[in-house]
């Protein structure tokens, strides 16, 4: 028993250290963003000056990132949900290959994808310099997450029988898709959407090569700020980024929880 207790405390201590490793820098950077002079510590006083500077210099990047992530979400919904539905309906060698292909932009480094896009469409002036060029990269990168998320939910329910019973009641394809399929994968669509927006907001690997001076996204601006400005401004900028992305992350965490208790309840109902 005693040996077990030692083991427990050792593991707990280790886990707490890992937590500290992950959370301490976040807290530090948040503090640095509102500290007058980080080198002198908190005694130098708190200020919103750095945040103001970020807002003045970089607010365009914030708006562009929000805009791109929302359009990216719309595109992934239109492309991804029907694709996931097809992949759930037909499970054969072909659809597995398609699934594998769709995931490739996640596996292949963003740098390579971005270069590929540049060498192919770099000459198309208007396209290359507009924000849609970045959008294409973001859609490629986030589409698999939407497809996976919806597909996971669709594979967990008995889609085939649900659709069969709807059609036995007279529902045509459109009615089945909008009244049965979509409502029943709402959870997957929501989870996928959160993922897509979060990833699009933070995408840097591709965006750094795809952007132009007029199409800087938030992470591009961050990299700029880290490289050229004082630590406090970089921190303040990071703080702004956290404020935007943390609600999304918390929503994702919340989504992954209650689903468990719901299935448990359904199991009891089956008794």
């Amino acid at each position: 028993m005693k040996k077990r207790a030692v083991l427990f405390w050792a593991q707990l201590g280790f886990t707490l250290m890992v937590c500290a490793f992950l959370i301490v820098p976040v807290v530090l950077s948040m503090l640095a963003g509102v500290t007058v002079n980080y080198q002198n510590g908190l005694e130098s006083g708190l200020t919103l000056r750095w945040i103001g500077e970020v807002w003045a210099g970089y607010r365009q990047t914030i708006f562009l990132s929000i805009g791109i992530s929302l359009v990216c979400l719309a595109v992934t919904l239109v492309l991804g949900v029907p694709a996931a539905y097809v992949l759930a309906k037909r499970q054969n060698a072909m659809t597995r290959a398609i699934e594998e292909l769709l995931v490739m932009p996640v596996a292949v480094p963003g740098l390579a994808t971005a270069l590929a896009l540049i060498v192919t469409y770099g000459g198309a002036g208007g396209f290359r310099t507009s924000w849609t060029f970045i959008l294409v990269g973001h859609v490629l990168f986030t589409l698999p997450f939407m497809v996976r998320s919806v597909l996971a939910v669709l594979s967990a329910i008995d889609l085939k029988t649900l659709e069969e019973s709807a059609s036995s009641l007279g529902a045509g394809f459109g009615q089945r898709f909008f009244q049965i399929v979509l409502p029943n994968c709402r959870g997957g669509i929501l989870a996928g959407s959160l993922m897509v927006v979060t990833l699009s907001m933070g995408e840097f690997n591709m965006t750094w090569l795809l952007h132009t001076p007029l199409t800087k996204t938030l992470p591009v601006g961050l990299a700029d700020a880290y490289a050229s400005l004082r630590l406090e401004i970089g921190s303040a900028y990071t703080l702004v980024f956290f404020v935007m992305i943390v609600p999304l992350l918390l929503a994702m965490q919340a989504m992954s929880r209650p689903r468990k208790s719901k299935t448990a309840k359904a199991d009891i109902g089956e008794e």
Partner: protein
Amino acid sequence: MSRESARLFALLLPAGVFFLAFFLLPLARLFAIGGSGKEGFAAYAAIVSDANYFSSLMSTLALAAMTTITTLVISGISGVFLQRHKFPGNALLVSMLTFPLAFPGVVIGFMVIMLSGRQGLIGDIAMYLTGEKIVFAYSMAGLFMGYVYFSVPRTILTIMAAAEKLDPRIEEAARSLGASTWRVVFDVILPGLKPAFIAAGAICFATAMGAFGTAFTLATRINVLPMVIYTEFTLQANMAMAAALSFVLGAVTWLVLAIARTAAGSTVAAAG
């Protein structure tokens, strides 16, 4: 039946066209451009024949391997611990461990700077204790730290999900047969978690191979393949070599994931 097939085809078409036009076609073009430099398609061999590129490849592989092993050990210990022991504060710890899940590479680079940069916490503590400042953010060690930071949250989630599915009765059976705690760990728990380790490890590895943001934030001088490609592209304007190198990097990374997916037997949760 055929009407149904036509309908499904139509639903898949938009995603397919997009994918073809903006991924497969560009990749094919990238491949062609990679062979269009003065060395021709021999450029693809440069990654092993050119000493500089080869050393970058080796250090990238070493970094990725180290990151993977470290992340798996950390996540294995903490993930199984948090899944097995429900104590007050458990949920809070899980939230904290998975909080940085979707931080982009650049931000993670900055977190490393906050910890071990010129004004970093570790440096300050070392200064206070020994009178000497430790700064390692802008080196391979900093990059390693960043990649572990990046990989731990998602790996812990995978391990916890797998640990939850382990049948406790198998463990009880092992104990009833007289197995010690360590034997149970090595004979029951670790084999049970193997698919999750492979799946999560593959993603760690792929990320550490191809990630760019963290390295970019820390320093452009770190000798890893993504930085080399970036340098070839921007500073040397050597498009052909950049294309060849990135194509090889993409192929290697994709291959690692594909092999792991087959080995793990289940679908590896995609993650960036």
